[in-house]
């Protein structure tokens, strides 16, 4: 490489080992400048903004003039039941989504592989992946069309069919929401996540199946003895990565599908909705900020921890 500038004769003793040739590479620095500047503003400065959690935020005084309160915000957060509820909800929903979601996506991918007609397979794949493109706002309308108290399909049509006279004010009854949200989540995501599994099923060497068939293995045996064992690394890796994200919830689901109804707090509030409501002035900003920091830090530790486990399991699949 052209280590230009034979600078030895100059008076100034330049750094001898400097391999950097700015004369040639400056255009590359110009290229990265906008992106790096954006990362600085959008990602790095907010990291230092964590100090807000240690202040009693007062918008009239401004953030920098607001009083320091040490760990007070965290104390408030953890002495109320809020911290427990939002942590429990976030983790439990994520667990259900992860375990059941993996099973459903895998099942979907295996069945999709049984469809021999190329056209039908592509068609099904396209349709089942489609809900993942729909915005949460639109989905909140779809949910409302079914569950709205006065006009919803369930209260007006399904209940009379079943002979139920009662109406249910769905958006006021927390006890139904774990099921509703789980259904909505899977409606949106199963088809989409099955595509990843399907891709790796398609990649399995066909000679395994041929050999099994010669030995008289049934289709079911082929699936349980060949397909699933071969898929195991992918399943384990995606699961570990999912566990690493356990502290972050699918925000749109919990905020939009529930219409952010306060009556549902016990079963639908997650850390993300809690922080968001605080920010919008519907909750306590100090406690929300504390919850945000709590999420950032525990979330970070989990990601690192589970990435470490992935690394032990399969070095190539680890994020770092």
């Amino acid at each position: 490489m052209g280590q230009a500038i034979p600078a030895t004769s100059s008076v100034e003793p330049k750094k001898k080992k400097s391999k950097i040739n700015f004369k040639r590479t400056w255009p590359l620095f110009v290229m990265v400048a906008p992106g790096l500047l954006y990362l600085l503003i959008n990602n790095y400065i907010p990291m230092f903004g964590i100090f807000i959690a240690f202040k009693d935020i007062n918008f009239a005084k401004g953030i920098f003039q607001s009083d320091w309160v040490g760990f007070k915000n965290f104390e408030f957060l953890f002495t109320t039941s809020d911290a427990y509820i939002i942590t429990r909800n976030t983790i439990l929903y994520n667990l259900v989504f992860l375990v059941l979601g993996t099973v459903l996506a895998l099942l979907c991918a295996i069945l999709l592989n049984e469809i021999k007609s190329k056209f039908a397979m592509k068609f099904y794949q396209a349709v089942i992946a489609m809900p993942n493109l729909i915005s949460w706002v639109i989905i909140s309308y779809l949910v409302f069309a079914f569950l709205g108290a006065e006009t919803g399909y369930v209260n007006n049509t399904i209940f009379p069919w079943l002979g139920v006279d009662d109406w249910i004010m769905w958006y006021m009854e927390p006890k139904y929401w774990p099921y509703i949200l789980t259904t909505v989540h899977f409606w949106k995501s199963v088809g989409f996540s099955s595509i990843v599994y399907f891709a790796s099923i398609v990649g399995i060497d066909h000679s395994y199946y041929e050999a099994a068939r010669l030995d008289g293995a049934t289709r079911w045996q082929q699936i349980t003895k060949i397909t699933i064992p071969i898929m195991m690394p992918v399943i384990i890796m995606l699961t570990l990565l999912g566990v690493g994200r356990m502290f972050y919830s699918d925000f749109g689901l919990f905020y939009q599908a529930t219409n952010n109804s306060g009556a549902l707090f016990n079963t639908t509030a997650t850390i993300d909705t809690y922080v968001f409501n605080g920010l919008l002035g519907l909750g306590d900003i100090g406690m929300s900020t504390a919850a945000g920091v709590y999420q950032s830090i525990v979330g970070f530790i989990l990601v690192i921890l589970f990435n470490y486990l992935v690394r032990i399991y399969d070095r190539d699949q680890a994020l770092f």
Partner: protein
Amino acid sequence: MKNENRGWALAGHLSFIFYTMIVLIPFVLLISASFTDQQAIYAEGFKFWPSKFSMEAYNYIFAADSGIMRAYGISIFVTVIGTAASVMIAALLAYPLSRKEMPYRNLLMFLIFFTMLFGGGMVPSYMVWTQLFDVKNTIWAYIVPGFLMNGFNVMLMRTFFANTIPKELIESGEMDGAGEFKIFAKIIMPLSMPILATVGLMQCLMYWNDWQNGKIYITDPDLFSVQNLLNRIMEDIQFIKTNMPMNTGDALASMPSDSVRMAIAVIGVLPILLAYPFFQKYFVKGIMIGAVKG
């Protein structure tokens, strides 16, 4: 053996026909609700086959003063400008990082990667974008905060540039006296269409579907995007119902009727449903790339 395979195929078809119906039924209900007469909705709720059809909702929406067309225009502007800008910025950052000659490239890669692991969270971001930059109630609030660039897209592009563009091409460009910018524009970009399309598509969907930035930064109804308009309408109805149960009728009368709301939702989702068959291929490809590292 043949029969057994056919049995599995049949089970597969039946399962997927069922699944397809589950996916599509909510949309059918939404669309039919938007074509239902308001009195029929009061009487019997939303139905798959309403007892009385009506085009009134769409007439109302397409009337010039409804503000919905304006929201549509804002959504389109944000999606187009945001997608173009974000693909450009990410490509410009990713390309030098794919070059061995780039000084500090490992450090820069780490800086980008770290943002994928750790973040300050919503409140500090809000403070930065409102206190240091005054994005509140400007159209840039939809485009810039949070969405303009993410580390994931940069990593995706960098991998593509490093693995698919032969070094010889860049060297021959240099030999011909082309500067770095020219090489980037004339050699790299045309060869990178697949990854640009994939990332562009993901950004496009993100901008079109986003409601969070609007919710956080926009309070001026004249600046609402389709998603925020829909969100506001839904919230207003919930608000009226929970806070003024006595005279709901009067207050609700001033709101868009049920069928109008459903019609706005239909119009909001329509572009995606119509375009889907055309971008489906890239979408599926994007998932696969995304799954490898993500």
